[in-house]
C-alpha cells in the first residue's frame, strides 16, 4: 500500500472550459514525505502541473494550498499529517481566483494588506541613533511580526470569502495590530479611524479558522480582539 492516490485540482483557463480533478498515483516507498515532495515527483512526470514554491522550508509562504480540506504550506506538511485512507486531495487556496491549477491570484489579499499601511509611521524628528524600544515594548510584537503572508488564514475565513473587497482579513489585521502595538509608530489614531467601519475589522465573527490553519502558529483572532479593545477605548 505504498501507492498514494493523489487528486489534484486542474484548471488552465486558456484550454479548459471548467476546472476538473486529475487523479495520480505516487509511489512514496513508504516514506513520510512532505506534500511538496509529492508535487515535485508529479511535476517531473507531468510538466503541465502548476504550483508555486520557493524556499521549501516554511519561510517564503509561496506554497499555501488546501490539502485534504485544510489550508497549509505544502513544504512543511507531512503526508502523515493530512493523508486519510491513502488519499490526498490538493486544491488551490479557497476564495481567490485561480490563475492556473494550484496557483491563485493573490491580488485581493495584497490589496487588503496594503490598506492597513504595513510600514512604520513616525512624525517625530529623526533621532541621531535608532528609535529604541524597551524589552517590554519589543515583547508586544512577538506573535505578530512572524507572519509570512502565505494567505492560508485569510482564505480559510468565510468572512473574507464573502467580502474580500471590504473585510481586511486575518492576515492583514494581524499586521494592522503589529503596527498599532509598536511603540515607535505615531499613526495610531489614523490607523484606528480607518478600521471602525462595519467591515474592515468587525466582519470577523471569531470562528478562529485562521488560528486553526496558521502554519506559523500565530493567533490573528487575538490580534483582532486587541484592535477592537483599542477602538472601544478610543471611542467611549
Amino acid at each position: 500500500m505504498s501507492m498514494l492516490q493523489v487528486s489534484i485540482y486542474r484548471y488552465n483557463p486558456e484550454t479548459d472550459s471548467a476546472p476538473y480533478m486529475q487523479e495520480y498515483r505516487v509511489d512514496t516507498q513508504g516514506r513520510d514525505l512532505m506534500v511538496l515532495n509529492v508535487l515535485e515527483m508529479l511535476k517531473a512526470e507531468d510538466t503541465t502541473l502548476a504550483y508555486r514554491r520557493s524556499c521549501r522550508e516554511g519561510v517564503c509562504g509561496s506554497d499555501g494550498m488546501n490539502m485534504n480540506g485544510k489550508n497549509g504550506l505544502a513544504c512543511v506538511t507531512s503526508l502523515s499529517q493530512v493523508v486519510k485512507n491513502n488519499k490526498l486531495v490538493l486544491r488551490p487556496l479557497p476564495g481567490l481566483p485561480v490563475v492556473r491549477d494550484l496557483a491563485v491570484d493573490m491580488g485581493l489579499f495584497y490589496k487588503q494588506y496594503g490598506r492597513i499601511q504595513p510600514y512604520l509611521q513616525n512624525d517625530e524628528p529623526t533621532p541621531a541613533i535608532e528609535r529604541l524600544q524597551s524589552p517590554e515594548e519589543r515583547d508586544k510584537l512577538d506573535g505578530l511580526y512572524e507572519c509570512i503572508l502565505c494567505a492560508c488564514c485569510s482564505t480559510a475565513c468565510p468572512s473574507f470569502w464573502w467580502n474580500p473587497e471590504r473585510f481586511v482579513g486575518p492576515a492583514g489585521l494581524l499586521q494592522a495590530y503589529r503596527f498599532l502595538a509598536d511603540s515607535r509608530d505615531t499613526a495610531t489614531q489614523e490607523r484606528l479611524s480607518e478600521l471602525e467601519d462595519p467591515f474592515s475589522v468587525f466582519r470577523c465573527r471569531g470562528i478562529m479558522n485562521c488560528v486553526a490553519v496558521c502554519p506559523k502558529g500565530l493567533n490573528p483572532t487575538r490580534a483582532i480582539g486587541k484592535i477592537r479593545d483599542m477602538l472601544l477605548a478610543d471611542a467611549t
Partner: protein
Amino acid sequence: MVTNITSLGRSGLSDWLIQRVSAVILALYTLFIVAYLLFNPGLDYATWSGLFAQTWMRVFSLLAFVSLAAHAWIGLWTVTTDYLKSTSTRVGAQIAIILAIFVFLIWGIQVLWGA
C-alpha cells in the same frame, strides 16, 4: 474607510457594542420570563395581565423589544451583506427587514400599553 448607510449605527464599533449589550438584555429578559413561568404553574390571565400592568415590567419589556429590534437589524443586515450580492436585492431585503422591525416594535408598544 468602508462606509455603509443601512447599518444601524453606521459604524462597526457601535454596531458591535449594541449587539453585545442587547444580547445581555435579551438574555436577562428570557431568563426572567422562563423563571416566572416555572415559578407560576397554572398561570391565569389575571396574574399574567397584572405582571404587565406594572410600570417596571413595561419598561423592562420595552427595553427587551428595543434590544430585539436593534439586535435583529444588526444581525440580519450582516447576513444580507454576506449573501445578497445584487444591490437591488440587498437593498430591497434590508428595507423590508427594517420596515418589519419597525412594525413589530410599534405593535409591541401598543400591546404593552394597550391592555
